């Protein structure tokens, strides 16, 4: 166990009776329950935790919470659980925690990447844009640059943990559990409103926990006791929910707020309860919102202001009072407002040796001066810090009067900077509220609300403790009233007079004066992205004057901290560089998320098999039993092929395709979309949505139809059967079923409400066993009782009702292969039974199950199209050669478009067959068809592209379908198909029905 030399003897919420061991890199350290990784590191005197993004400069812990810009580490629990870019200030300590520094090699203290720092003069803002132009270009250098500049590495293993997403509704959502947030929650919850309080850290209290409990009492209680009392009261209210470790990360339209809860991240992995998810994502729809998200302290901008050991004064106070850690032995405070003095005196009282206070102002509060003098603190008024020393940890600073003169070297290991307070308006701005620039605060604060929210306390620009309580009570009551409750007056807690003090007068200097020449000043604005004042000046000089452009050009505020503490200083510096006021230059856009949210939490349960609903047919288990290869088709999982042991996928497809034409093949066609169309106007509807005519289709007969969009392009196809004069059974493509149903519903509801037609999706009602092959009618006859399956009696494009062992079936004689084929439809609960029975009875015919790949191949042999493969939303029925299916009389969806000048063009791409000169060569689908033997210099005139391509086992050669400009007039012509490596492949344009052509040739 280490000694924790910087741990105070008392104070804070940490449990000193218990010790937690953890490691940081190779160092074994210890802390206490209640610590964050940052507070435990600081207790052990570790400031240096990271290297910066660009120059690899040493980075320390700068803040105490989500605002910390650069203290990023990797939490490595095991190989699968490693969380890069975790803020040390936010990771709660647990026993055995293993943190590693990142973005450094070989070690954190000796990082070779730091050579970038020496090269800094040559890597100005926009360096990459300026340097990697033209040949060989960015792409060549990117991998190396990405390696050098970058943060942690994520695990490439699947995430082993569970995550949860939750929808919640509430009357009032309160963001922030500090003084204002707690009062707002009380005000709303006491009158019965359903309230959710979201607090980002592990404990309620906010700033109250970062104050000396000997000085701040609330209703004569210590802050911790007061907060505990509030918590107890809220927990007893049935409609109040307290969520700690929960960040409100996004404010969206209509008062939708995203909350991200870290449920078990603070527990060591072995102790995490199995039943709990690791993190939760809440989508909260709140009637009213109170934003009590507090304020952020601004850093000061001076030369070498980025060393480990330089921290925000507010963070130092948090470490002292919340965690019982004083992160330095000899301390200097640099400030431009009263809160810096409060912090300095706090540190002195806690036993720190405060060497000096440097105040940018000339006027300082008398009481502060007196108290400081009493404690022997050196006071430098109207002065500034002009430089710092210490390679990996601050060792001294140089203080100089602003007017100039000899700098004084002050030795110190901690410099607390207090640059004034900025209301945390991120969520307010995300909600589309308008910001207002406050001249007194020299910062933006909430101006005009857009949604149902109000800001309270420090988030609203009120920094005194008593003000925060009153503000919270006001906002909570207001929210409750707006949500329909009658608020009651709430007693405002009393705090001692010292609690009234906010920041007092403030003096903002965008860049502190320096004795160095301008180009040698390295005053950092953004500690994570290494953006200095010099970079921003350069951006302005080069014309990137807009705040949005300067941000992108320099990357200021673009790190994982989104510039929480950097942005206000960047705006102020830009305004001064442009010689304009801050409100005139505006702000960058506050976007969701407020801070990085894990993808796992966003994905929630929607991972792996639960990513999307997966539909399977009643016969699925049988397919699995045969070790079928599956493919997703729409939402469905379909068997693609059934390779036998030792057989490749290709061999299986060839065998299956052959069997379907010589013996009996069987396909599970259950996934086909099926819509029950019923009502007196059903026929009329079909007439209006299909390109062909339906008026004469008699009951018992079926017809193939093409459906277009209003643009005249083929949208879907399928066979529809007439069950009765007012009753049809429509089938669609597997993937198009939902789209077709929605489209028909749309037209029925909006364009043709007078039509009496009712549509019902019956896709899942029916399982379909599709039999194919010259012998298959015999098998159908054996399977079905009371059915004469003789193809001469049972006409093509008709159907019959029959029974299989007493179970009713509907048998269609239709074909998608060009072969004799029957489709047996049965109630899906009998699907597997019928399939197994078919397999049993079919043995003697050598029945062979075939998958979707063989189905695709078989139909291509016949030249049948697949919507979505031969068509891509730019193909008309005429392009496909289906002009005969377009009726001459009567309107239908898309008809008029077929006569538009463009759709009637003669050089449109038309569907044709392509035969390679060398029968063994199978063209690649998607290849371009060109008209010359050699591929000329680009641009090459492209005549079309290959849509389907297979090796046909039945024809013993390769076949391909293609869309080719003026294709039908090119039959017999020689064209070429371009390929990636090698000369274009010569092909002959042919008709689409390879099977017919093949048998004609053999005859």
């Amino acid at each position: 166990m280490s000694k924790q030399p910087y741990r105070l003897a008392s104070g804070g919420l940490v449990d000193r009776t218990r010790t937690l061991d953890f490691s940081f890199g190779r160092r074994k350290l210890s802390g206490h329950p209640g610590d964050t990784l940052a507070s435990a590191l600081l207790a052990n005197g570790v400031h240096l935790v990271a290297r910066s993004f660009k120059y690899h400069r040493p980075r320390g812990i700068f803040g105490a919470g989500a605002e910390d810009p650069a203290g990023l580490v990797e939490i490595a629990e095991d190989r699968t659980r490693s969380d890069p870019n975790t803020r040390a200030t936010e990771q709660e300590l647990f026993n055995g925690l293993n943190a590693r520094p990142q973005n450094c090699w070989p070690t954190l203290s000796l990082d070779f990447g730091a050579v970038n720092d020496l090269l800094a003069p040559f890597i100005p803002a926009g360096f990459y844009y300026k340097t990697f132009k033209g040949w060989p270009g960015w792409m060549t250098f990117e991998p190396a640059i990405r390696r050098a500049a970058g943060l942690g590495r994520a695990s490439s293993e699947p995430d082993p943990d569970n995550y949860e997403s939750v929808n919640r509704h509430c009357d009032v959502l309160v963001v922030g559990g500090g003084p204002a947030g707690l009062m707002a929650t009380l005000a709303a919850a006491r009158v019965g409103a359903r309230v959710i309080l979201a607090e980002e850290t592990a404990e309620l209290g906010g700033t109250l926990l970062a104050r000396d409990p000997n000085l701040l009492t609330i209703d004569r209680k210590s802050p911790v006791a007061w907060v505990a009392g509030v918590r107890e009261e809220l927990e007893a209210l049935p409609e109040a929910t307290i969520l700690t470790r929960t960040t409100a990360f996004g404010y969206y339209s209509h008062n939708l707020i995203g909350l991200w809860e870290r449920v078990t991240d603070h527990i060591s992995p072995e102790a995490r309860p199995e039943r709990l998810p690791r993190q939760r994502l809440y989508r909260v729809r709140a009637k009213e919102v109170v934003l009590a998200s507090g304020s952020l302290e601004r850093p000061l901008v001076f030369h070498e202001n980025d060393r480990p050991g330089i921290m925000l004064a507010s963070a130092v106070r948090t470490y002292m009072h919340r965690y019982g850690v004083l992160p330095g032995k000899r301390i200097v405070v640099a400030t431009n407002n009263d809160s810096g003095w409060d912090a300095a005196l706090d540190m002195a009282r806690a036993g720190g040796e405060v060497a000096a206070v440097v105040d940018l102002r000339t006027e300082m509060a008398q009481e502060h001066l007196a108290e400081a003098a009493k404690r022997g603190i050196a006071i430098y008024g109207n002065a500034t810090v002009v430089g710092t020393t210490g390679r990996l940890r601050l060792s001294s600073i140089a203080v100089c009067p602003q007017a100039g003169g000899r700098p004084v070297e002050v030795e110190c290991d901690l410099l607390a900077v207090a640059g004034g307070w900025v209301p945390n308006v991120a969520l307010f701005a995300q909600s589309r509220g308008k910001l207002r620039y406050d001249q007194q605060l020299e910062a933006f604060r909430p101006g005009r609300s857009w949604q149902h929210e109000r800001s309270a306390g420090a988030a609203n620009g009120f920094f005194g403790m008593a003000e925060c309580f009153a503000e919270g009570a006001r906002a909570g009551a207001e929210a409750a009233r707006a949500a329909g409750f009658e608020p009651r007056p709430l007693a405002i807690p009393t705090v001692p007079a010292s609690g009234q003090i906010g920041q007092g007068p403030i003096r903002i200097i965008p860049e502190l004066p320096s004795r160095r020449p301008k180009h040698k000043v390295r005053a950092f604005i953004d500690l994570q992205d290494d953006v200095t004042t010099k970079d921003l000046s350069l951006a302005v000089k080069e014309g990137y004057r807009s705040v949005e452009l300067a941000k992108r050009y320099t990357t200021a505020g673009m790190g994982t901290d989104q510039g929480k503490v950097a942005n206000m200083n960047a705006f102020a510096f830009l305004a001064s560089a442009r010689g304009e006021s801050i409100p005139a230059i505006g702000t960058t856009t506050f976007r969701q998320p407020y801070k990085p949210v894990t993808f796992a939490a966003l994905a929630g349960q929607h991972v792996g098999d639960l990513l999307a609903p997966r539909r399977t047919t009643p016969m699925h288990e049988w397919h699995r039993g045969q070790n079928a290869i599956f493919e997703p088709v729409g939402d469905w999982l379909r068997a693609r092929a059934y390779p036998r042991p030792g057989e490749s996928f290709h061999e299986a497809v060839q065998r299956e395709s052959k069997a379907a034409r010589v013996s009996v093949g069987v396909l599970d066609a259950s996934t086909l979309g099926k819509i029950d169309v019923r009502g007196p106007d059903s026929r009329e509807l079909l007439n209006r949505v299909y390109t062909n005519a339906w008026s004469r289709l008699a009951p018992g007969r079926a017809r193939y139809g093409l459906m277009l969009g209003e643009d005249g392009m083929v949208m879907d196809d399928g066979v529809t059967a007439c069950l009765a004069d007012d009753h049809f059974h429509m089938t669609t493509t597997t993937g198009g079923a939902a789209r077709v149903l929605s489209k028909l519903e749309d037209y029925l509801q909006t364009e043709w409400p007078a039509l009496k037609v009712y549509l019902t999706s019956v896709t899942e009602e029916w399982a379909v066993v599709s039999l194919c092959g010259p012998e298959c009618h015999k098998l159908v006859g054996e399977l079905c009782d009371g059915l004469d399956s003789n193809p001469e009696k049972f006409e093509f494009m008709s159907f019959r009702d029959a029974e299989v062992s007493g179970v009713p079936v509907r048998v269609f004689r239709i074909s998608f292969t060009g072969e004799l084929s029957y489709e047996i439809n049965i109630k899906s609960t009998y699907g597997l039974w019928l399939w197994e029975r078919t397999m049993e009875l079919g043995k003697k015919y050598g029945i062979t199950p075939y998958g979707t790949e063989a189905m695709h191949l078989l139909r291509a042999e016949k030249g049948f199209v697949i919507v979505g493969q031969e068509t891509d939303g730019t193909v008309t029925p005429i392009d496909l050669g289906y002009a005969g299916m377009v009726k001459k009389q009567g309107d239908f969806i898309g008809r008029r478009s077929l006569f538009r000048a463009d759709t009637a063009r003669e050089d449109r791409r038309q569907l044709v067959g392509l035969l390679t000169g060398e029968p063994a060569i199978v063209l690649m689908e998607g290849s371009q068809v060109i008209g010359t033997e050699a591929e000329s210099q680009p641009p090459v005139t492209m005549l079309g592209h290959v849509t389907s391509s297979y090796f046909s086992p039945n024809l013993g050669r390769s076949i391909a379908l293609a869309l080719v400009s003026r294709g039908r007039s090119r039959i017999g012509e020689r064209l070429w198909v371009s390929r990636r490596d090698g000369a274009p492949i010569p092909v002959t344009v042919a008709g689409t029905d390879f099977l017919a052509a093949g048998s004609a040739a053999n005859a």
Partner: protein
Amino acid sequence: MFLIRCPYCGERDISDFVCGGEAHIARPTDSETMEDADWASYVFVRTNPKGVHAERWNHLAGCRRWFNVLRNTATDDILTVYRIGVVRPDVKANLPPTPSGEASIGSGNDGAKVMAPGEGGSSA
């Protein structure tokens, strides 16, 4: 992330719905005699106003009924919903200063993010 009040089911999250584009575009019944340009305008051309826009929405994960919505595209306020066949109601919408309140230089809506000096309004 809107909340939309389906006229048949009540208020639901946007994830229940799909948008079907601009409303009140009737399918021509005389397409046979229409000029190409007129037909193309029916098929392809839609308005894209800043301000009140009549849209078709379908409660796909609910009652599957189509209805119309008047939405202010500048503010995303849903002004009213009404059933198919009902005449478009006349509603007033609060439009932010036009043309769009952008700052004279730079990108983005800088002017819309920060209040101009003297511009009224409070945080509540």
